[in-house]
């Protein structure tokens, strides 16, 4: 399926839940509401015409310093989907605010989401509701803060941690 057709399909099926769609440099992106995210992801994986069987990547962007986006929701959680059957790609985004940075988990759909969501929690502090064990992945448990947030200075030092008993 061609990228524009995928976006049209999503808009037709989910209506207002698809907040925004665009195609930039050949990448087709749909921004969906948080409430509809689980349903959209499920549809993307299971619908035979879409058949996005691979969750290629899951990451987040702290848009609080992006021009024009300072006042909106702080985080964008970005899903890169790929279909082995149809060889097409789709980028899905969901925007969440700093006060309530919670997104439904994708672990039941793709087990790889387990680690990727742990990494996003680790780096951005975005929580995933329903995740089996949302621990830090790249950093240690006692690490203070979430380093890929824009307000985390690149040279901040962490308190020294002694050996665990």
């Amino acid at each position, binding site marked *: 399926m061609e990228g524009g057709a995928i976006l049209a399909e999503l808009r037709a099926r989910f209506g207002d839940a698809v907040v925004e769609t665009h195609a930039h*440099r050949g990448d087709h992106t749909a921004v969906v509401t948080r409430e509809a995210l689980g349903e959209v992801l499920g549809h993307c994986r299971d619908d035979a015409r879409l058949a996005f069987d691979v969750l*290629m990547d899951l990451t987040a*962007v702290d848009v609080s*310093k*992006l021009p024009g986006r300072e006042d909106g929701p702080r985080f964008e959680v970005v899903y890169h989907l790929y279909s*082995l059957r149809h060889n097409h790609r789709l980028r899905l985004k969901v925007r969440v605010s700093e006060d309530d940075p919670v997104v439904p988990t994708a672990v039941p759909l793709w*087990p790889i989401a387990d680690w990727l969501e742990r990494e996003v929690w680790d780096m951005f502090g975005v929580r995933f509701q329903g995740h089996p064990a949302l621990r830090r992945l790249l*950093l240690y448990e006692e690490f203070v803060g979430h*380093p890929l947030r824009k307000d985390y200075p*690149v040279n901040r030092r962490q308190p020294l941690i002694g050996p665990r008993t």
Partner: protein
Amino acid sequence: MARPTTTREFMLGEGAGTGSGSQNIHVGVGPAHPAMHGIIRIQAELDGEVIVKADVEIGYLHRAFEKDCEVGGWNNAIPYTDRLNYVSPLINNFGYASAVEKLLGIEITERCQYIRVITSEISRICDHLTCVGASAMELGAFTVFLYMIKAREFLWELVEDVTGARLTISYGRVGGVKADLPPDFGDKMRAAFKQVREVLDEVHRLLTGNRIFMDRMVGVGALSREETIAYAITGPMLRAVGVPYDVRRAQPYYVYDRLDWEVPTQAAGDNFARYLVRMAEMEQSMRIAEQALDQIPGGPINVDHQGRPLDPATYVDQGKQGKTESLLLIPIRLSPNLQGSERPAHQRINAADKRVILPPKETTYGSIEGLMNHFMLIMEGYGIRPPPGEAYFAVEGANGELGFYVVSDGTDRPYRVRCRPPCLPPMAALHRMIEGEMVADLVPTFGSVNMIGGELDR
């Protein structure tokens, strides 16, 4: 999800503890275990010698690649991408550069695309040699390791010829590459490939069909096709379960669609299948590089007015004799990188876009436009400034899809750089591969994952 059952017969006494009701024990494997390649820690719950449950921790390498990219300019991230994968750094260089080029909307020159293909494939062979050699060594086949490292050495000499360094090559540039191929590269590459082929032949005879090796690899660490896809595993591990997905074929970039090669696959999905896929891929990579070298536009650099290759000494002699009709056609190479009088090479391998490419040094020193162009790219607050937006570009790394997701806010610094590391998904699925297997099976299985710490931890 269905998990393939691996049947195995217990030797007398070997499986005595299994199911006897005795207490399971916890064993921490790594991070100091020699087969753990550094930073990985696996907490395993054992029943006898069988791993019942495993928890994989990927350790703290703390490179902070993604955070560091936000500090410097767009080209300043190139050295960081080298260090993502120390055995195939060229692919990482080009993956990042291509993502930025996509964001900028610029086209690199055809010769540069061929150079990227050739050097990427050399890197891929180095990566597979290291992976297969190291995992064979962990099973006791030390000869194989030495042979493979010898073969890798031939290739690293090629890499050194092209880039000036062996590991930390920093060869890619947004919009091109650092320097052209050296003049005698073609001959050296063919000679090196001949030796690599001999090594691969030797290794095939040592390992493929070797009773001990097969006992350790066949049926071990298997993952089903469905599970491999659900875990987003790409590269040789995906092809080892029979899915012929390869970014170079599925979404061709550079000039891969002009070349004739195959995507090797296997059906079993176990460690042995992964080994066979990697061995076959090295052959294919050499095929690709050789074809690309045949097709690469440009040809010999020193030719006379009739197109015959000319060595520099003859050229000088002819000049002394007054035979100067072809002098203007001939670019002179004085230095192996772009510091000398290499303006023609510069135009061949770098995009014409003045927003991203530093001018040749003689232009910088010799004309005010060149000087201004140079400064506008070097000064803080200027430099490469992609328009606001985002792009995702994937290349086929040695371990699978290596994707870069870049976000620009219109300034000279990346707003966000995200690397989709190809070895993270197999590490996330590692516990599925080793649960139900024996402790000793952990070693070949972990070897077949080809975990690269720099990529995994970023």
